């Protein structure tokens, strides 16, 4: 194998048995199942329903490369990382890993609730493949990074979820692997901690580590990876420069059914055929400035008349936080019926969403409370904000009017008492 190659994958495949019938989880059920098969002389043998979570995956990753793995839910991204980290065994093909590999598939796996932060640091370090001397040498740096020094001897069951995640990530961050597999783990904790994680990932990059990164956060993929591998139904459909791959992925997910939507109708009564999200300048670039008005244009086509439709456009943050919904009914536009083809245009008020990655969906109900007829992804977009920078927390950011007056001025002259009332100007 070439010395510069960190990961080499050839023809990798993973087959699972799809559980169509009830799961056989107790011995009794299996015995009954086997007896039935015997009694019917195997004629009624349950057909095994296989599916390939991964098929014929091949790629090489050079040392020091950062590669993002993208794809819709169920495309095989996590399975690929699980195979590469040796948790599951592939069905076909092989992979060569050259170097010390660290896999962070879920932050904090293996933490024990009853143990203290200190004990868990050693436990988690060992689980991630560090030995005791190594954890000892890095212990102070880990506690520093996690910012939990005063709680280090408290059982983690008393930790807040933020402290828990910080400690887990801090241990993982000090693993110093040659190759790091990351599965969505950067999308934990609050915004400030996420930034810390991103900074850490970039520091690994500077050290020359190879990073394989699964994320739905296109923004972090854009900033971290020069190359993306786009998986679709377990196959590689694109492997190349990030910008090109993300464009393919975003185009590919446009107008697709939302992953939670399921319909038993063979023919949809209504389908949205196109959707664009324009900034106030009239461009659909996928980047929107904080506070900008959007124009969302949707084209539809129906196969029958739909009475009193309620069209809802919702905006979700990349971590699936539901941020807002525009409803045609609620916003006061009563559409008696729609039929054939047409266009809907929504002009939004200035959107004060914080800088993050968002996804716009459209859904339609007949007679507002009737059956859900369609739910589709319109597009992904990123809200950029140069002013707020690291100060933006939460979903929305609106300035408030502040006033301050000192009621009991301190006598101690060394402490300057604020006397001037001020109003925030932003």
């Amino acid at each position: 194998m070439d010395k510069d190659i960190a990961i080499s994958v050839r023809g990798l495949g993973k087959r699972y048995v799809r559980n169509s019938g009830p799961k056989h989880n107790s011995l009794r059920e299996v015995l009954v199942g086997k007896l039935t098969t015997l009694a019917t002389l195997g004629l009624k043998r349950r057909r095994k329903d296989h599916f390939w979570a991964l098929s014929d995956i091949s790629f090489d990753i050079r040392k020091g490369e950062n590669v993002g793995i993208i794809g819709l839910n169920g495309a095989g991204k996590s399975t690929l990382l699980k195979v590469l980290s040796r948790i599951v065994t592939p069905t076909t093909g092989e992979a060569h890993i050259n170097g010390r590999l660290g896999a962070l598939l879920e932050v904090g796996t293996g933490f024990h609730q009853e143990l203290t932060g200190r004990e868990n640091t050693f436990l988690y370090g060992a689980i991630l493949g560090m030995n005791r001397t190594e954890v000892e040498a890095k212990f102070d740096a880990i506690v520093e990074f996690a910012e939990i020094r005063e709680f280090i001897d408290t059982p983690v069951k008393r930790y807040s979820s933020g402290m828990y995640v910080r400690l887990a990530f801090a241990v993982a961050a000090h693993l110093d692997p040659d190759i790091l597999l990351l599965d969505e783990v950067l999308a934990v904790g609050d915004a400030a901690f996420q930034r810390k994680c991103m900074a850490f990932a970039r520091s690994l990059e500077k050290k020359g580590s190879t990073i394989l990164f699964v994320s739905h956060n296109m923004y972090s993929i854009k900033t971290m990876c020069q190359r993306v591998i786009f998986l679709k139904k377990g196959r590689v459909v694109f492997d190349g420069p990030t910008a090109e791959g993300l464009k393919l992925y975003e185009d590919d997910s446009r107008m697709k059914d939302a992953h939670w939507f399921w319909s038993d109708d063979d023919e949809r009564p209504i389908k949205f055929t196109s959707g664009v999200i324009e900034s106030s300048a009239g461009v659909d670039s996928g980047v929107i400035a904080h506070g900008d008005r959007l124009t969302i244009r949707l084209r539809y086509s129906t196969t029958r008349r739909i009475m009193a439709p309620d069209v809802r456009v919702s905006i979700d943050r990349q971590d699936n936080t539901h941020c807002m919904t525009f409803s045609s009914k609620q916003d006061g536009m009563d559409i008696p019926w729609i039929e054939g083809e047409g266009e809907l245009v929504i002009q939004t008020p200035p959107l004060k969403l914080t800088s993050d990655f968002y996804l716009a969906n459209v859904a339609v109900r007949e007679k507002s409370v009737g059956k859900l007829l369609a739910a589709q992804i319109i597009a992904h977009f990123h809200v950029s904000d140069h002013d707020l920078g690291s100060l933006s927390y939460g979903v929305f950011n609106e300035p408030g009017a502040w006033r301050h007056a000192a009621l009991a001025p301190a006598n101690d002259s060394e402490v300057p008492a604020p006397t001037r009332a001020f109003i925030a100007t932003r």
Partner: protein
Amino acid sequence: MNAAVQKALSTGAERHVVIRPTKGLFDLEMGSVWRYRDLLHTLMMRDIQVLYKQAALGAAWAIIQPVFAVVVFTVVFGNFAKMPSDGIPYPIFAFAAVLPWTYFAEATRRASTGLVDDADLVRKVYFPRLIIPLAKVSAPLLDFAIAFCVLLIMMAFYGVMPSVKLFAIIPLILIAGTLALAIGLWLGPINVRFRDVKHTVPFMLQIGMYASPIVYPLSQVPAEWKALYSLNPMVGVIEGFRWAVFDRDSPDFVALGIGLLVVLALLLGGLVWFKDQEQSFADVI
């Protein structure tokens, strides 16, 4: 980076790994278990630390359990049933057997259900899965050591002089631990698929206890059944304990020999079975 870390890094994990669908049936990968010995140690320590956390009596439970069993046995079998005890006071006669049995039962129970208890780890992290049953049979050794101190106190109380033979309990308890590991290797992978194992083990251990010379001496077993009876490796271990504690002339080499062969056969078969099943743990658990 200091020298210790540098060294740790170069020995910590494998440098070059090949991932393939199947491994040879007899490729037991003992080398990788050795490389992950720090994890083995840490998981064992975790099990020890966790066991008596938030229990008011703490490690005293390690003593209470076997002592209570012996009190009950003494009343029921020693006093009511007048069970012979080879001329030794019944309480210490029973305790010398309850001691290894308690360890064996606990180790077997934990080794059999360990994979499922640590399902989170199995699903999300790679390490040689053999580490789990190994850690599970090691952790109860501490309880054994604590209870052993009680035995020493009882020996002083009943005037049993310790001899150099007492050191023989070290290899004997290792045999008991190996047997628990072997059973865990067989039952652990089954438990991954069928949780029934969890309910079956306590019941099998109950039967096993009466199929071992704990409340009665080996001399009570009819001679024609003795060979069959000795297929239970705990027979040799328990009689060995009594030999070591009561300074008898010679241990029951036949029972011990048969038991040892059974343990080895169970262990080798268990290792092959466990390694064969290992690949599907994360998919099924």
